[in-house]
C-alpha cells in the first residue's frame, strides 16, 4: 500500500516584497521520516517551516500537511503539530509545569490529563527537578528542552524543529540529540532545520540543502556526500608545485586559502602520487562529510 506523505509541497513560493524568500521548492516527507532543511542564513528554511506551521501564508504553489491544504485547514493541521521555534518563546510569567499546562489548554487538553502529560514530559526532558522554577532561572539548554516538551504536549503527528540546538554547549546538544533519537525510534515524523551539519548527518534520514530560496540537492546524507564530495577527500598544503602537479594529473580540486582539496574516486592513489612526485607539505586523506557538500554547493562567502 502506498503511504500518503505527511507534507507535500509543489512549487511552493513566498515573497516578501521583492525578496523571493522561498522560490519554487517541491518536496514530500513520508511518515516516520526525519527530514532536514540545511542552508546558510537567509536560505528560506525558517520561512518554509512557518508556512508548514500555518502561520505564514504562502505566495503561490501547493502545500498540504496531513493531506490538508494549509490555507483552508489551519486549525485541523495545527491540532496535530508540535513546534519548536527558533526563538525561545516560553511564557516567562510561568514556571515550567505551568508553561506546559497552559500550552496544553490551547489544544483543549485540560485538568488531570494536562497535569499528567506535563509531569511525564518534564520527566522525559529531565526537568522534573525544575518543575516549579520560573523560566528566567533556566539555562539555555533547559529552555530548549522545555520547548521540546511543550511541543510534545498534544502528542503531535508531526514535529517541526527550527534550529533545535542553536546556541547550546556540546553536553546540552548531545542530550537534545538523544531525545530526538528516542522520538525518531518511536516512529515520529520530524522535520528540522539546522546549520550544524553534524546534527543533520546524525539525525536525518533525508535532507535538502537550500540556498537563496531554492533547493539545491535532496537525498540521504550518505548519498549526498558520495555524489557531491566523494567518499574520501585528499587535503594537501597549498603550493604552486602541488597545483601544477594536480593539473597534470587531471583531477578535480579546489583551493581554500592555504589548503587544496582534491576530490577523486581514488584518493589513496592521488595521495601516493602527490607524495612521490610533487614534494608536498602535509597530505591528509579523510572521509567526506556533509560539510564538504554544503560548502561546495553554497560557496564559502559569508552570508551575513
Amino acid at each position, binding site marked *: 500500500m502506498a503511504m500518503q506523505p505527511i507534507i507535500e509541497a509543489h512549487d511552493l513560493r513566498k515573497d*516578501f516584497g521583492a525578496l523571493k524568500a522561498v522560490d519554487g521548492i517541491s518536496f514530500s516527507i513520508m511518515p516516520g521520516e526525519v527530514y532536514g532543511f540545511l542552508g546558510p542564513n537567509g536560505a528560506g528554511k525558517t520561512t518554509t517551516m512557518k508556512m508548514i*506551521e500555518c*502561520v*505564514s*501564508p504562502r505566495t503561490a504553489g501547493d502545500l498540504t500537511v496531513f493531506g490538508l*491544504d494549509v*490555507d*483552508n*485547514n*489551519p*486549525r*485541523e493541521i*495545527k*491540532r496535530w*503539530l508540535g*513546534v519548536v*521555534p527558533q*526563538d525561545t*518563546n*516560553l*511564557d*516567562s*510569567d*510561568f514556571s515550567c509545569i*505551568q508553561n506546559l499546562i*497552559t*500550552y496544553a*489548554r*490551547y*489544544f*483543549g487538553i485540560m485538568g488531570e490529563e494536562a497535569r499528567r502529560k506535563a509531569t511525564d514530559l518534564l520527566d522525559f526532558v529531565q526537568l522534573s527537578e525544575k518543575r516549579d522554577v520560573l523560566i528566567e532561572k533556566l539555562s539555555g539548554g533547559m529552555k530548549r528542552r522545555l520547548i521540546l516538551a511543550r511541543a510534545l504536549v*498534544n502528542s503531535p503527528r508531526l514535529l517541526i524543529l527550527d534550529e533545535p540546538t542553536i546556541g547550546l554547549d556540546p553536553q546540552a546538544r548531545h542530550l537534545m540529540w538523544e531525545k530526538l533519537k528516542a522520538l525518531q525510534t518511536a516512529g515520529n515524523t520530524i522535520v528540522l532545520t539546522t546549520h550544524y551539519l553534524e546534527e543533520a548527518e546524525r539525525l536525518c534520514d533525508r535532507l535538502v540543502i537550500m540556498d537563496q530560496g531554492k533547493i539545491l540537492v535532496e537525498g540521504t546524507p550518505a548519498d549526498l556526500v558520495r555524489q557531491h564530495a566523494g567518499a574520501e577527500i585528499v587535503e594537501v598544503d597549498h603550493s604552486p608545485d602541488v597545483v601544477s602537479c594536480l593539473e597534470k594529473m587531471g583531477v578535480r580540486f579546489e583551493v581554500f586559502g592555504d589548503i587544496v582539496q582534491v576530490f577523486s574516486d581514488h584518493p589513496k592513489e592521488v595521495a601516493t602520487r602527490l607524495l612521490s612526485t610533487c614534494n608536498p607539505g602535509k597530505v591528509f586523506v579523510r572521509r567526506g562529510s556533509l560539510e564538504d557538500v554544503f560548502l561546495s554547493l553554497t560557496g564559502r562567502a559569508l552570508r551575513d
Partner: protein
Amino acid sequence: MYFSLSPGERSGIDMIPLPTTSSWKVWRRNADVFFKTYLVNFLPPVIEPVLYLLALGYGLGMFVGEIDGIPYVHYIAPALLAVSMMNSSFFECTYSSFVRMYYQKTFDAMISTPLSIEDVIAGELLWGATRSLIYTSAMLVVLIAFGVISLPSSLLVIPFSFLAGLLFSGIGMCFTAISPGIDTLNYPAYLFITPMLLFSGTFFPLSVLPPVLQTAALAILPLAQAVIIARSMTLATLSPLFIYSMAWIAIATTMFFFLSIHLMKRRLVV
C-alpha cells in the same frame, strides 16, 4: 471547541476577523498570571481612590463646595471610576500586550497551536475588559465605604465597567498594532489619555468649556461618555445624554474590537 467554516466560506470573508470561543484560553492565561500576584495587583485600585478622594474630594472640595448642587466629592467619585475603567484596560492592551507580543513572543507561541490570531487578540481584549471590571469593582467598595455614591444604582457600574473596558482595550490594541516600538506607545498615553483624563467632565463640568470644545469633547472623547454614564449611576440621576453616550460606546466598542483584530492580523501574519 470552536466554530469552523468550510474552505469555501472562509475565503470570501477574509476581511472580517472572526474570533472563536477558544479566546477564553488566552483570557485564562492572563487571568492566571494576574491572580498569581493578586495582592500587588489589587493595591493600586484601592489606594488610588482613597488618595484622590482625600486630596481632591475633601481638600479641593473645601474650596469648590458644590457643583450643580452636588457635593464635590460626590461629583468626582464616578469620574474616578470611569478613569479606572480607562486606565486598567487601556494600559493592559498597550504596554502589557506589546510586551507579550514583541518581547515575550507569547502570541507567536499561541498561534502555533489551534488558536488563531483572531482568538488571541479577542482573548487579550476580553481580558482588558475583565481587568477594568476587577479594578472598578474594588474601587467601588472603597467609594461605598466612604459613602459618596448612591446604592443600589451604583452597582450597575460593575457590568458597565466591562463594556467600557472593552472599548478602551480595543482603542489601546489599535495603538499597539501600529506602534513601531514600546516607546512610541508614550504618544497615545500622554497625548490622548492624559488630556482626556482632564477634559472629559471628570473634575469639572464640560459646561465651563467654550461651546466648541464642549461639543468636540462630547463628540469624540470616549472617556466623556463613560463619565456621563457612571455619574448617572452613582448619583442615581439619569443624564439627558445617557442614551447618546451608551449608543456611542456600543458602536465604538464594536468598531474598535474588529479594527484592532484586523490591524494586529496585518502586523503579525506575514
